[in-house]
């Protein structure tokens, strides 16, 4: 099985560790930005969820990067059943998203403790952190699917970022209420945002997001199987 090999691929690329480190800085800055102005610890630690952007990029680059560096040739020579390659990536990237989410949670709690000057209230912040971690796990898996469909790593990263920064907002305005079911909105629902009555419950949000990941993975497998590696 190629899961151990996929894990090794991930940890032998320094850029991935850099991504993990930058994510921590973003969390510290995000937590500090909120707590320096108001005492909303839940909104502060919700930045763990935004680290999912890094998890998404991690997944995209893990898959599309194989095409960029042409290591995909070696990978498919080793494992001609391409479906298994994509599944092995998912099996490694989902836990990697967990690592990103969990480490960001520790960082967020540490930063929070420093700002508040005491032990953070885990009971109050726990659900937000758990939602943030799930957001990371699902987005890392989603990234693998995106990278398998759009194998040009630059284009895949641009598409992923453009969706989150711009396109989803525009689409949400077009479809009104249904915008709650778009990926980023579901991620926000996972960490309990926006704080109003008609948001999707975290459980349902996690479930639908996982559905997105499954659909993208399926399209990714179909695309990887059909594409010639020239």
């Amino acid at each position, binding site marked *: 099985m190629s899961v151990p*090999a996929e894990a090794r691929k991930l940890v032998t690329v320094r850029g991935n560790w850099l991504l993990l480190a930058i994510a921590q800085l973003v969390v510290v800055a995000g937590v500090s930005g909120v707590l320096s102005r108001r005492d909303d610890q839940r909104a502060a630690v919700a930045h763990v969820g935004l680290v999912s952007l890094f998890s998404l990029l991690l997944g995209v680059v893990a898959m599309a990067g194989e095409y960029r*560096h*042409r290591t995909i*040739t*070696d990978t*498919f*020579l080793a494992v001609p059943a391409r479906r298994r390659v994509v599944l092995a990536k998912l099996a490694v990237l989902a836990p990697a998203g967990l690592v990103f989410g969990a480490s960001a949670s520790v960082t967020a709690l540490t930063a929070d403790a420093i700002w508040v000057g005491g032990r953070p209230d885990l009971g109050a912040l726990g659900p937000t952190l758990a939602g943030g971690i799930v957001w990371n796990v699902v987005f890392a898996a989603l990234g693998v699917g995106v990278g398998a469909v759009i194998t040009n790593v630059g284009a895949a990263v641009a598409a992923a970022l453009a969706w989150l920064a711009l396109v989803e907002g525009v689409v949400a305005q077009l479809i009104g209420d249904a915008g709650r079911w778009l990926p980023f909105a579901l991620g926000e629902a996972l960490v309990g945002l926006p704080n109003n009555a008609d948001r999707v419950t975290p459980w349902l949000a996690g479930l639908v997001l996982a559905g997105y990941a499954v659909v993208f993975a399926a399209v990714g497998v179909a695309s990887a199987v059909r594409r010639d*590696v*020239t």
Partner: protein
Amino acid sequence: MPRAGDSAGRFGGDSRAMTDVVFSGLSKQFGAVSAVRNLTCALTPGVTGFLGPNGAGKTTTLRMLLGLVGPTAGTATIGGRRYADLPYPRRVVGALLDATGFHPGRTGRQHLVISAAQSGLSASRVPAVLDQVELGDAADRRVRGYSLGMRQRLGLATALLGDPPVLILDEPGNGLDPSGMAWLRRLLRSMVTEGRTVVISSHVLAEVGQIADRVVIVDAGELRFAGPLADLGELETAFLRLTDGVR
């Protein structure tokens, strides 16, 4: 089972049928371009030179054999099976396709350990193949700093990981200096005395003329010749005649 010291080498004898490479009506259409047209021929143990001008369809043919490119029609098999249907393909076929295919940030050793792991091969093969291609000293440097010749050696090491009876080498001489070429010839010779099937694609005729027993010549995606090198007479003259070159 072939015995060590067998005159046909350790891959000779009964295993021959298991390693025969057969193209049967193989065709590939890329949009409007016919890259390979109805190619039929068989390759047997020994060194086969796979020759043709640039763009003749050599690389596409080899990539179809390895399951990387899907044929539009026909089949390419190894011992009667498609590459994708081999239980441990890397124990049957080793391939060097080009000097790319390495993550620049990984070391040569990391690349080989990953390759062995995903191929279901023991990591204990890694030092062995590093020795075989004489890359041991550079094994723990990042591939980013490798010369083209070192990348070729690393690619060859990857191909040898599974100790396969069939070796497919696409332009293996690229980037090798004269002493590197001499080393490659010696290595391939030893592969052949062990009874392996070695296929070398090239457009450098002199390179192939020195080591091949048989040649397959393709041009514009079509087979032009398959047979013993000795049957061709002077290789360059024959090559140009067969590929619509001058002379």
